[in-house]
């Protein structure tokens, strides 16, 4: 059996950030990667996807974007190269094509079983991501057999879809981006919209992520949040990293011909039902966006930016159809494909250890799990709002590395 002090599961940007921090602390470790470095970005993303954060915000421990377009958004080949270069530059101890099949407590440590032999380590850091399994609602299994169903994990581009209409369930970042390109491909899109988080791409001349970073919104610690459990469930910002930096929201999609309806809530034979709550979810999103912009404006004033950046403005309220669609008869043949852009779950089925609540959700305190020696990174709002951004990995990995190093030294460290 192989032995080390720390096994990191997953060699994406989070795992590599932990590796860098452990290397700085001279902790012997290995990264077990089921595929190649940046595997999910290579194999589970659609063709046109770009990061939702500007390039300058791609910062990892001892590493940052070095190109000539700091305000642009990396596409997938660029991002894969960015992460690959990082792994190579610091000779991260990655063991590729190694699929972890089980992690179980063993004495004062853990045994990590893989398809390439077993490892024993005092500590394990889970860095396998929070988007492993598409979260498809139960009603998907009741859909008529002649309707094709796709998840964003397997969607690549509109050409793989049948000609004809497409129902996209979910209007967060993924749903709105897919709606835009599928509508443009000549397939009419019906976008079923639940709760979402609306923001402008550029506000007062600067990227929304610049404002959120500068004003401390991205860095707000998890133990200062009013309701952290709720904060960890908030869907991704309704954003796209488009070349022209325009905002992609329900209004721009409506202008492009996309039909907006409420969330898909039922199917009876061929009849689909949509929620009548569309008006309210749009009001909630508009109000929440304006609160964010108010916070940004206050911060700008306090920091003397008024007059130096563009003046404040507000977006047009979301235009909701006068009588939104509540039903759709699939037998009419208008819809050929349903795309479930309804989020993801982490797959931790291989973790045979305590650490889950009665609802099966992972329990951690800022990445520190119980049993001792077990850590997790890359989860929504792990320690700050930016925990799921590339830029958030440094802080979370540094904390986990500190705690892990003290644990190995037999010291107990506060979280």
């Amino acid at each position, binding site marked *: 059996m192989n032995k080390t002090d720390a096994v990191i599961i997953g060699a994406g940007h989070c795992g590599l950030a932990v590796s860098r921090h452990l290397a700085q602390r001279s902790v012997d470790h290995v990264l077990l990667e089921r595929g190649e470095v940046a595997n999910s970005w290579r194999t589970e993303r659609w063709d046109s996807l770009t990061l939702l954060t500007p390039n300058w915000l791609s910062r990892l421990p001892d590493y940052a974007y070095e190109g000539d377009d700091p305000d642009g958004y990396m596409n997938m080949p660029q991002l894969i190269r960015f992460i690959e270069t990082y792994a190579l530059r610091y000779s991260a101890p990655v063991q590729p094509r190694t699929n972890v099949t089980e992690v179980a407590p063993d004495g004062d440590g853990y045994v990590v079983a893989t398809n390439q032999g077993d490892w024993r380590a005092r500590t394990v850091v889970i860095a396998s991501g929070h988007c492993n399994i598409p979260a498809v609602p139960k009603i998907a299994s009741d859909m008529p057999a002649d309707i094709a169903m796709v998840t964003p994990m397997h969607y690549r581009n509109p050409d793989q879809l049948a000609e004809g209409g497409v129902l996209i369930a979910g209007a967060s970042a993924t749903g709105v981006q897919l709606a835009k390109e599928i509508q443009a491909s000549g397939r009419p899109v019906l976008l079923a919209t639940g709760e979402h988080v609306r923001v402008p791409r550029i506000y007062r001349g600067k990227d929304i992520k610049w404002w959120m970073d500068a004003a401390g919104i991205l860095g707000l610690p998890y133990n200062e949040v009013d309701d952290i459990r709720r904060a960890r469930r908030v869907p991704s910002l309704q954003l796209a990293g488009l070349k022209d930096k325009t905002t992609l929201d329900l209004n721009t999609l409506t202008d492009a011909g996309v039909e907006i309806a409420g969330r898909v*809530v039922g199917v009876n034979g061929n009849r689909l039902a949509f*929620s009548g*709550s569309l008006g*309210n979810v749009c*009001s*909630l999103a508009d109000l929440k966006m*304006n*609160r964010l912009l108010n916070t940004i404006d206050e911060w700008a004033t306090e920091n003397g930016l008024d007059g130096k950046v563009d003046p404040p403005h507000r977006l047009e309220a979301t235009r909701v159809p006068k*009588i939104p669609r509540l039903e759709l008869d699939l037998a009419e043949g208008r819809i050929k494909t349903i795309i479930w852009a309804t989020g993801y779950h982490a797959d931790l089925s291989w973790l045979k250890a305590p650490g889950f609540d009665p609802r099966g959700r992972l329990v951690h305190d800022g990445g520190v799990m119980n049993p001792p020696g077990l850590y997790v990174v890359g989860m929504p709002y792990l320690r700050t709002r930016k925990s799921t951004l590339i830029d958030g990995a440094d802080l979370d990995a540094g904390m986990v590395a500190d705690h892990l190093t003290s644990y190995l030294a037999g010291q107990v460290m506060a979280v």
Partner: protein
Amino acid sequence: MSDTQVNNGVNVEHLLGAREALEAQPVAAQFKWRSSCEWVNGTHSRSTITSFHGLGEEQDRGKSFSIEADHPEAFAAEDNAPTPAEIALTGLASCLMGGVASIAQHRGIQLNSVKATVEGDMDLAGILGIDDEVRNGFGTIRVSFDVDADASEDDIKALVAQSQKRSAVFDCITNPTNVEVAVKKA
């Protein structure tokens, strides 16, 4: 978060405590609400509401409430009480109202007066079987809130929006619900 200077008559601390307790004990969070309805005469009926199930056991509130329903004279009925459809609208308004008060308390917003008016469109071609394409229930329901509170207009709008988000009856009306009806001969 909650402001002790604000009093909307809602015990937010108790509600937050209950939320925490029920999250830890999922079984206790399983409630059953009941109403039993008895035919009086014509379209006139009387419903009685007494016990409910929750917190892991039967809850006998030690009293009962009565709600009558009937139809107006235009339906050749005696108009002894509001129609069931009006009671449904009332349930929606009351549910949203309770939510507004609770959320306002939690957010430290003092309510001075709140009034909600509900109006539902109904095409009788549905219930009378004139046109199968017309549904029996409401077409559009409009709720209009007039709120006098110590808060900005956007904060007041956010109160009402959040109340819709967490309303049981709003959910019942906007989303489908499975209804099982059993019948036995007395």
